[in-house]
């Protein structure tokens, strides 16, 4: 047997053995291999480093031994559009994850001579593309929904019998090792590889202007809507929700910068004629599993050096209960994302949500959010306006009155506007 073939076969055997002989429970049985083998609950593989990939960032001056840097990359480029053939090479992004590029200025990893002094990330960190892709044979959400409905044991609940899932849930962070929508576990090029050419271009555009020009355009900075996909982002807190159950609708309420409201309309059809910021969701029960179909989504951006999505985005999601020794623990969630404009194939993500409290908890309640911002782009970069600026809005200082006083009460004889007495009194 030729040496090369022998080596290849050895690698094969070693890899398969490594997968199958690892002690139980182990990474092999982690949730990302959900369709393969049983896993102990919550056996996701945590991302190395604190902060789930955002802190303790690997910072290297160059590529690892044996790997050559590209002669030109994102951080030396004057026009990323011309570098299209390089986008699929992780070295173009210096092996940084999308999140690392989002943070590259604030973390200092941009170096002393930005942008060319940008640090390298860990070229060995990545999450397999195969696990980002949907394992199911369906090509559209409609096909998927109808197939699941055909196989289902149709269940109709009444107000009295609907599953008792009500409560406050938070994400199970032991799944952080599989949350590719967080932008923390993949090379940029791996995420690009599941996008269509137009959407690859848009993601590289974002990476360039955030990482090289230091001009982040975060949704919450300008009070743009979060947008549908940010329910699955790390910082939006979309996954820490209040859940209310009803025979007619199942409602998820969450958010940090803006409110995410998702309602599953049980047994209904889609009727909205225009895209909705958080989509329009219908669903049905298959025993104790809730199966949902979200359509009519407003295309937007996941932001933070990740990808945009189109109006064609639809999801099929399932929610099923988790009981340990008869006690309800939380919900197991699986989402398949369909977007023929943005994705080359349907994508897949699973998460577990643990119930932290019931709705009977005396102090927990949902805090409704209004996004109030004095951040504006000045010369292309977000800047905090101060009271001195013309466009500053003193939200808590009677902004309507400030406008009238400024434009219509100039020169009027009225009581002197001065500092509050409590301040002046200090030096009396």
């Amino acid at each position: 047997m030729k040496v090369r073939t022998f080596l290849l076969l050895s690698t094969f055997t070693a890899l398969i053995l490594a997968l199958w002989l690892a002690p139980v429970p182990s990474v092999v049985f982690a949730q990302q291999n959900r369709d393969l083998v049983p896993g102990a609950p919550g056996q996701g593989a945590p991302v190395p480093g604190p902060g789930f990939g955002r802190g303790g960032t690997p910072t290297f001056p160059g590529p690892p031994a044996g790997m050559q840097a590209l002669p030109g990359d994102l951080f030396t480029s004057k026009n990323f559009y011309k570098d299209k053939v390089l986008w699929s090479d992780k070295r173009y992004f210096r092996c940084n994850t999308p999140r690392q590029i989002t943070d590259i200025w604030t973390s200092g990893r941009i170096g002393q001579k930005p942008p060319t002094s940008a640090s390298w990330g860990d070229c060995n960190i990545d999450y397999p593309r195969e696990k980002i892709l949907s394992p199911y044979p369906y090509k559209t959400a409609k096909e998927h929904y109808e197939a699941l409905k055909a196989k289902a044991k149709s269940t109709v609940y009444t107000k009295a019998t609907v599953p008792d899932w009500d409560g406050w849930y938070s994400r199970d962070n032991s799944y952080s090792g599989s949350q590719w929508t967080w932008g923390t576990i993949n090379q940029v090029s791996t995420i690009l590889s599941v996008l269509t050419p137009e959407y690859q271009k848009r993601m590289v555009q974002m990476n360039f202007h955030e990482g090289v020009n230091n001009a982040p355009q975060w949704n919450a900075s300008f009070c743009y809507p979060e947008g549908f996909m940010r329910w699955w982002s790390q910082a939006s807190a979309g996954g820490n929700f209040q859940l209310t159950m009803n025979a007619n609708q199942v409602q998820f309420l969450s958010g940090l910068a803006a409110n995410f409201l998702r309602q599953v309309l049980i047994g209904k059809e889609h009727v909205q004629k225009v895209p909705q910021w958080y989509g329009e969701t219908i669903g049905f029960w298959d025993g104790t599993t809730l199966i949902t179909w979200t359509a009519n989504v407003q295309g937007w951006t996941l932001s933070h050096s990740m990808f945009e999505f189109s109006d064609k985005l639809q999801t099929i999601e399932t929610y099923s209960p988790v009981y340990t020794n008869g006690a309800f623990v939380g919900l197991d969630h699986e989402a398949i994302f369909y977007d023929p404009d943005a994705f080359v194939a349907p994508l897949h993500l699973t998460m577990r949500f643990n119930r932290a409290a019931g709705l009977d908890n005396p102090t927990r309640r949902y805090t409704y959010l209004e996004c109030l911002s004095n951040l504006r782009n000045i010369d292309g970069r977000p800047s905090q306006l101060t009271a001195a600026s013309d466009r500053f809005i003193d939200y808590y200082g009677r902004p309507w009155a400030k406008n009238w006083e400024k434009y219509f009460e100039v020169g009027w004889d009225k009581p002197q506007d001065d500092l509050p007495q409590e301040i002046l009194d200090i030096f009396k």
Partner: protein
Amino acid sequence: MNKKALTMAVPATLLLALFITPVFSHHSFAMYDQTKTTTLTGVSKQFVGQANHAELHFILIAPDRKGLAKGPDGKYVEWGVEMAGAAAVAQQGITAETFKVGTVFSVKLNPLRDGSNFGSRIGAIAKCPMDPATNKPKLPEADKHCDSVPGNTLLGGTTF
């Protein structure tokens, strides 16, 4: 039961990391110059208890600590400092009540890169104590800050 599952699932180091990583903010901190620290002492004018970022707007006290600072235009000098969300800073004892109008305090911040009078808070806020005899705040000496005044309180941290 749920707590147990959570504790088992999240190793202690990761739990700790949840609290020491930068606050999940609704904007990037790139607009602040994180290599510069500015220390200011002033009088609270308005506490803005926003969900995402609380802000404290204050009038600067003159370096000699004998009056309010005046800018080159002869007007009082107003500054703003942003910090974590209202609920989070309330846990640290920082509220509209504890920083009501007239409260004298000192704060360290990373200023905006564009030079405007606004910054992002670093570390604890030092509140000057009240003088029970005069019922007015005890001010620091010239060029000093509230952390040097005996009886001062540190809020939201242990070092100024």
